[in-house]
């Protein structure tokens, strides 16, 4: 289990080597979920299912629940049960923000392929189909999670910097922008958010003057970021 800083290349190799339970953690906006969706889209019949966890989300919403239909109640599979049954990818965002019951449910969801099984309130017993894989993301290190849950991941990766594809996208939007954003992540406390950078590039493309675009996108940091971009060779 690689818990130290590692590169995106390592994540790619883990997936290629057959890892099906991954936890990616790192600063926001580096492309964790995007990468997870891309990885889990390949070679499967259905697109991956994505769920955003938060304190208000209940285990029933993920697993399934009864819904009234006319004079009777009908069982409705939640996204997790659906992903199990159809063998699709499951992207679980912000696992660190989930409520206790949801984290307890995740113990079963992320269990080994061979032993994992759940009995639904409908009486149906489900098992993860072949092809099921889950990638969870978090902004915080996994230290806050239950050790039993942490143990269920094949791989835990720290991704401290933006994905190369995201950097290329930023560079495509504005020459040198991606490189500057990537460099800024060496100091995570003062990193330039790729999302903000994309907004900035969009405004510049829309003929908004660079100073105004920077003010809109980066707020108080506008002048500092603009100076860094100009020194980094970004044409404005």
């Amino acid at each position, binding site marked *: 289990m690689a818990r130290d800083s590692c590169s995106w290349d390592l994540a790619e190799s883990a997936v290629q080597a057959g890892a099906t339970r991954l936890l990616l953690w790192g600063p926001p906006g580096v492309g964790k979920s995007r990468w997870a969706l891309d990885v889990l889209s390949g070679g499967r019949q259905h697109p991956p299912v994505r769920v955003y966890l938060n304190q208000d989300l209940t285990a029933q919403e993920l697993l399934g629940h009864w819904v009234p239909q006319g004079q009777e109640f009908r069982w409705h599979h939640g996204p997790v049960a659906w992903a199990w049954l159809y063998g699709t990818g499951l992207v679980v965002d912000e696992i660190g923000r989930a409520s206790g019951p949801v984290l307890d449910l995740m113990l079963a969801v992320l269990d080994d392929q061979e032993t994992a099984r759940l009995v639904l309130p409908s009486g149906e017993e489900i098992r993860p189909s072949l092809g099921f894989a889950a990638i969870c993301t978090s902004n915080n290190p996994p230290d806050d999670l239950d050790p039993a849950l942490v143990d269920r991941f094949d791989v835990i990766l720290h991704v401290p910097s933006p994905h190369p594809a995201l950097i290329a996208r930023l560079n495509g939007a504005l020459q040198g922008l991606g490189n500057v954003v990537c*460099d800024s992540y060496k100091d995570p406390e003062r990193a330039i958010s790729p999302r903000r950078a994309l907004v900035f590039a969009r405004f510049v493309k829309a003929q908004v003057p660079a100073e105004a675009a920077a003010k809109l996108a980066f707020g108080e940091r506008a002048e500092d970021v603009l100076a860094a971009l100009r020194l980094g060779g970004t044409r404005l």
Partner: protein
Amino acid sequence: MRDPRRKPAPSAVAPARYQVGAPPLGALGASSWHPAGEGSFAAPLGDSPQELAVRVHEYGHLHALRRKLHPNKPDAVLKELKRLEACTPRAPILVQAAVDCYIHGLLQDVGLGASVSALPVRPPQTEDAFDVVRALLQSKGTDVAHSRLRTAREALPTPVFDVARRVRDTLFRKGLDRKRLTARHLAHILAPLLLLLESPDEADQKMAEAVSLCFGDKGEGSVGWGECEILSAPLAAPRRVRPTRGFRSGYVGVPVFWARFPPAGDGAVFRSRRPTLGGTVLIDVSGSMCLTQEDVERIVAAAPGAVVAVYASYSGFRRGAVTIVAKGGRVADIPAALAKYGVGNVVDGPALEWLGRQSGPRTWVSDGDVTGVGDSIHPALYLDAIRLCRKYGIRRVEPKRDDKGRLVLEV
């Protein structure tokens, strides 16, 4: 933003983890960067144009450090200045100001000239020439550039002002062109200015001015000294070595100073002549000196007891020679010795090296112009000559002529 320390973006300029904090006492800002380690970024974190200008200035330094555009530490420049005999106690201040000037050119090039223009450059103490030059260099590219230039023009002697302005423009242009400023080159640019500022000696000033004239067009190439031979002409004719007029008290000679008789005195009652001043005189007999045979003979006569040698180029402009024309009580046939010389200098450096190995006091009779192979001028040759003069304690004496056209040496 809750924590203002999260505002600057130094890692976007030079990737590293930074310690961000307030500037050190007495400085506007400071920054350091190392690719493998932590960096530091100390600058004001407010929103005023002045505070932003300091931060942008520091970003400029970080960018230059990352791209290796200017020396990482002043030590390398100081070492080079030491080699050029131009490292003075206050040199580090001028090195920093020079690098700041270069950074302002660089920031101008990337469109950040307006951001850095509000930089609050500390006003100079006008009675301190060194501080005036510091402010002149640091203010280039800022709003106060014109006022600092005016102050410098009023406060500095004209040659110093001319060289300082030339240094400032050279450094700023280098930044603007994004040319790499090596420690060696920076030292060569600063050396004449430092020599002018630290040495009131007129001779050095003239040579430093000559160096400054070579900035830009000839500052980058390299020219060496010509090949030098040490010849000794037959010292045939006798030479009148006059005794000195001065006397001194001592323990040998004629008893004269009775007041020093013991036990009240120190016992040095005897009088003896002071020894005739020896030393070595080296005369540049190249074309620019316009010395005649009589002039050389006059110099030889004016330096009784000294070893006298002449030097210049001969057989073209690739080689030259030093010829000893007077030593001890003998003198050579001076017209014959001068006959073989050409009009070029070519071997000033090796000749000064020779002079450095002779007994002192060492005097170099020269107009201060030095040339290398091909009789070409180059700042490095001037600096080498200055370095040799400083190293060996050589005093340069420039010959002048009186109203009647006679040679006058202000020894």
